[in-house]
């Protein structure tokens, strides 16, 4: 099977690019390029990942400044052709600012940066990113963010529900969505969203940090393996 050609976008201030490249290479055997934010075409890739970090220092609002980079036009063109995009953490924030997904991120209700393992429940396994999971699987994956408190208007939330766009929800270890298990105040415990067509997945937890047992969990590994299977 030929290697998947993946691109990991590097904005000024992105800082999970190397971690993401390593995880893609090691888990799914991808051939990965770090793609500079000034790149104008993404046609050669089967998968684009917008990794975590602090693009442009998170200044003004997380993701707000990255949105206007040249690569974002290329990304639009790439997704118009149904290319696969995975946005992680800052990647999620950028996709929201770029209005490729609805809603916005607010500051965590604790007003603090939070780095810890959380549990998320898989709500859908019919996306290219989750097909190796079972619905209802509970994954232990770390989060690390200050602005992960998802907000969408009542209408937006209803639409998301209607088009089954919620892919991950924060839960407790047993898979129950409780207030306590919601680390940041996200509405409806939303931790990950996809587009109605399912080709873009954005998530706050960091699967690349949960792709190797030695780091405490490899529950995120199947995201990369699912992509591999979907593209096979």
């Amino acid at each position, binding site marked *: 099977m030929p290697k998947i050609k993946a691109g990991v976008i590097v904005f000024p201030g992105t*800082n*999970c690019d190397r971690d993401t490249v390593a995880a893609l290479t090691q888990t799914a055997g991808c051939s990965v390029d770090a793609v500079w934010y000034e790149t104008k075409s993404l046609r050669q890739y089967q998968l684009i990942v917008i990794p975590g970090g602090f693009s442009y220092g998170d200044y003004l609002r997380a993701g707000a400044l990255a949105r206007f980079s040249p690569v974002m036009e290329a990304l639009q063109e790439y997704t118009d052709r149904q290319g696969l995009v995975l946005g992680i953490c800052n990647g999620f924030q950028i996709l929201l600012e770029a209005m490729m997904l609805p809603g916005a991120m607010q500051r965590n209700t604790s007003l*603090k940066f939070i780095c810890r393992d959380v549990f998320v429940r898989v709500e859908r396994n019919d996306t290219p990113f989750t097909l190796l999971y079972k619905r209802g699987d509970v994954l232990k994956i770390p989060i*690390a963010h200050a602005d992960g408190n998802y907000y969408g208007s009542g209408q937006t939330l209803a639409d998301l529900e209607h088009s089954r766009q919620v892919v991950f929800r924060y839960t407790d270890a047993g898979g129950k969505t409780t207030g306590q298990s919601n680390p940041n105040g996200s509405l409806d415990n939303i931790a990950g969203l996809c587009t109605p067509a399912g080709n873009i997945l954005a998530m706050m937890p960091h699967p690349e940090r949960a792709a190797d047992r030695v*780091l405490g969990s490899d529950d995120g590994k199947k995201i990369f393996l699912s992509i591999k299977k979907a593209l096979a």
Partner: protein
Amino acid sequence: MENLETILKELNLTPEEYRRIVDRTGREPNLTELWIFSAMWSEHCSYKSSRPYLRRMPSSGKNVLIGPGENAGVVSIGDGLALVFKMESHNHPSFIEPYNGAATGVGGILRDIFTMGARPVAILDSLRFGEPDDEKMRYLIDGVVAGIAGYGNCMGIPTVGGEVYFDAAYKDNILVNAMAVGVVRDDRIFLAKASGAGNPVFYVGSKTGRDGIHGATMASASFTDETAVLKPTVQVGDPFMEKLLMEACLELMKTDHIVAIQDMGAAGLTSSSVEMAAKGGLGIEIDLDKVPQREEGMLPYEIMLSESQERMLIIAKKGHEKAVEAIFKKWNLDVSEIGKLIGTREIIVRANGQLQARLPLDMLVDEAPVYTRYARMPASITAAATVNAAELIPEPKDYRETFLSLLSSPTIGSKRWAFEQYDHSVGTDTVIKPGADAALLRIKGTRKGIAMTTDGNARYTELAPFAGSEIAVCEAARNIACVGARPLAVTDCLNFGNPENPDVMWQFIESINGISAACLTMGIPVVSGNVSFYNETEGSSIYPTPVIGMVGLMDTLEQRITPGFKDNGDVIVLLGETLDECGGSEYLKLVAGKITGAPPRVSPETERRLVDLIGALNKARLVKSASDCSEGGLAVTLAQCAMAGGKGAKINIAWRYRPDLELFSESQHRIVLTAARRHLRRIETMAHSSRIPLTIIGAVGGKNLAIGKVFSVPVETMRVAYEKGL
């Protein structure tokens, strides 16, 4: 010059120092020159009170590639790789503006690491606050922790460890020490030593503003009410800028375009240019008009002394200018050729087409004053040593309550409230996260692990600076050993009061002697460090607070040990001996509100045997969990192991002392380990031949930590107390 006296006072130069300048140069210096002297001869840059003593610390060893004197120390870890690490203080700035003071402290220590060509892989923070019970202290605590998080998280470098102590001694002078560790290929290490007269000097990074103009002099002065006047100079950190600067520098250092590089830290452009040229036996000429400036109308001395953050000075090779510029432009950074190296050992500064300063470098560096300060043992030392701590402690009526309050005391309680604000998993290398005895990182591409910790219980150093400092080294080594690594090398940050005070000077010398003695005995070199004097307010000093940062190595990650209890039925063993030692303990403070008595006895030789023993047991795969005893003693360690493993234990101790004194004693050189029962005999034999006392104290199992008939507490109840937060 008018008002010479006032100016000298403002610049923190003594009349004698001024006379020396005039005698040696044969003329009166102008104001710019005087500022340069003030910076270079400040305690912070010249180490004028400490230099002779620092040399006493052992700094060589077979793994040491670069010892003290460079931006950071470097030790080899094999596979063609080396660790670069150092610790530094940012105490005064953090008291004035906690968020930015702490943030720029992290920024500064990270620059020290990547300046040498290493990619930083970890940050640790060692903090001392006053008691967390008033608004002002809360504000400082919140700001400092958020500042460390703000900078490190944005840089994408995990903050994996550290410590936090609370004591009224730091009420008006908090301590913020940050340590950073980087990894570098051992044939790609960059130094701050200039070479090649005629080579161009580049300035890169942020523009220069009037930030922290008094920085180096401020770090060398005590707090008084006048400190308020210095306020407008606070530095604001820009971690985004530093991230770009780091990536650009690391990219540059893969090429062959430069000969030397140095970050602009304390005393900014002055110390970086002077030090680089002096190290190379050359001189330097700079034109301030070419320095990128953020504000208009800056005076030459302001540009020379500015401590704006996120700036580097680079000596490039002649002919490679375009290539250097191209890399920084790619990263959108200011880059400007501001001068060149010259063959004569002097610094020449021009601005507005005019000569502003011309001074011999030897004078600024090698001939900086050195003071042998008067030292005298404070009377309080002997007084405290004669106090019998046990007599101050009534036996608890309710052991369980006493134990739970100890577990929830701010100094012992979980530091989750801090370390969860730090991104400790970025980098995907953090194998043992904050919460264990030491942090452990993997090094991708190898099977190796590197362990790191910071330690320094200053109550002990306050009561007995020599022994207290030995304890700090021993505890650090023990923490490294408890995760399965062997100690490799030390960095330190020596936080003390005013060295012109003989009591403080005595504490300082004793402390250095203690560190030296322990490091010598244990064969652990000190490869970098930092001195922070003048930590006093209105004449009252902090505790003498030497902080030890230690790194360790393990050959394969499979050797890692964690503190949590593993399997029901495993036997719990105490290595080391418990004496009735509650002097300077957390327990004494809790029940009697006093910091007195003699600190626990310490023997680096015993520690060495203990550390070796753990290493040997681990190599023989006999250890299931390990954790050392420190603040709060055996009871607290057992609680931590139980909580970490989610398992209780049944403990039976044949009491030698009153149970509370034995449970909460802070005797040194002790480790609680668990093992499968069938390995007990081998463990006993090995401990015996290492001459380490061993006691079987119980077994893993149940939902409670049950200590004989003394108390029994559910693990979940302990967790609630321990995780209470501030």
